[in-house]
């Protein structure tokens, strides 16, 4: 789920940092600039892995900064398609399940990637799976005995497969109107989101597959 990306950038070092060894000063600045940020089509930056190459610092006319050209390797969170990862259920609603891995929250399972047949129980605010049931309509599923239902509760640890990831470049838009005029903010799309699936044998809450039954495996 983590990859190394090689990035090249020009970084200014403030004169007050000249006492720090240049390598450390550069890593600090790079972490300040990139850590916990999403790079378009690259992924979510975690931290600098190491510096591959750095030129001589140059002072430009106009400021006292030392400008370095650096090539460095960044640890990036970017699970590849079809990778299996472990995540936690953050919340559930009619549209699917929101997941989280702690440092990254924009992961979700849409309805089509839930094991079938399954339905959303509005009382429990959770989806449940009815294994070995022939019913398909939501009404029939909600009439099923509670003991047969396998709930995916909030906070549960689930094994999921990454189906696809999507980047969305949210343009800042035209300059903001002057004070007095309130610009209406529409809901922002996350810059990086991951769609996951649990509609497969072996995926879903870890507890489901702890005591692996041979019969269920044969079905798949």
């Amino acid at each position, binding site marked *: 789920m983590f990859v*190394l990306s090689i990035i090249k950038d020009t970084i200014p070092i403030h004169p007050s940092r000249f006492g*720090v060894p240049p390598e450390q000063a550069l890593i600090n600045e790079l972490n*300040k600039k990139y*850590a916990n940020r999403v790079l378009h089509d690259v992924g979510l930056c975690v931290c600098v892995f*190491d510096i591959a190459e750095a030129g001589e610092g140059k002072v430009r006319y106009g400021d006292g900064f030392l400008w370095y050209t650096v090539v460095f390797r960044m640890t990036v969170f970017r699970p590849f398609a*079809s990778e299996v990862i472990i995540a936690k259920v953050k919340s559930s609603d009619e549209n699917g399940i929101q997941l989280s891995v702690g440092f990254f929250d924009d992961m979700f399972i849409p309805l089509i990637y839930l094991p079938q047949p399954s339905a959303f129980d509005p009382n429990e605010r959770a989806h449940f799976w009815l294994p070995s049931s022939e019913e398909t309509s939501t009404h029939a599923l909600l009439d099923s005995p509670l003991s047969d239902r396998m709930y995916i509760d909030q906070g549960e640890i689930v*094994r999921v497969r990454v189906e696809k990831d999507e980047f969305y470049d949210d343009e800042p838009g035209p300059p903001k109107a002057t004070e007095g005029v309130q610009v209406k903010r529409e809901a922002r799309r996350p810059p990086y989101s991951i769609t996951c699936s649990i509609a497969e*044998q*072996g995926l879903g809450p870890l507890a489901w597959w702890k005591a692996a039954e041979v019969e269920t495996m044969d079905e798949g």
Partner: protein
Amino acid sequence: MQVIKPRASLLSNYEVLDLLRELESDYLLKSKTAVRVKKEDEAAGVTAQRNYDPLEDISENLRTMEVEAIQYLSADYQPTRMQTPQGIAQLVKSITPYGLTKPEKLQIVNLAPTEAVELYVIVEELEDRLGETMQEVLDAVQASLTQPVSASAPQDAGGAPGAEVVIRREEMEVEVYEEDAQWDHAANDVEFVDAGEGAGVEGDLDLDDD
């Protein structure tokens, strides 16, 4: 900014955890030194502001990332707490003959499947490709974990790595007192050497092309 290679190579969860822990202990060391320097200044009656504070250089974002990622990667549902660099290197070596692809090997290292169901998810068409050797892969995984999952005292498995970390931190504290007021040299010593513990694993998982 220019992205030269978005995916130069893959990293295992254990390597990332190791890197983050190193950053974390480095941070703890710095913050301790900073507090001590401040106290010494007060005792000596120095009122002039020091022009450089090492803690200023640690961004909030990096701290958030460190804390949350360490929490996730070392949670009790992750196998990282039972893994060792030697164990992982050994595991990668022992599953080479089965003709698995690099992403599959990476996931075996990350998820450490000890049951057949878990392996089914990771390896496509498992039965056709591995057949009878499936159990050997599972055994290799089991052997790479320091504390077998089926051990009678699973709660001990969590205690060991934690204790290790504490010891490492204590060592660092001792170091601090030896090198008086030379905190920046200590920081200089921390370098992310490529030929480190995880190097064997990483090299093996290098992507040749995109």
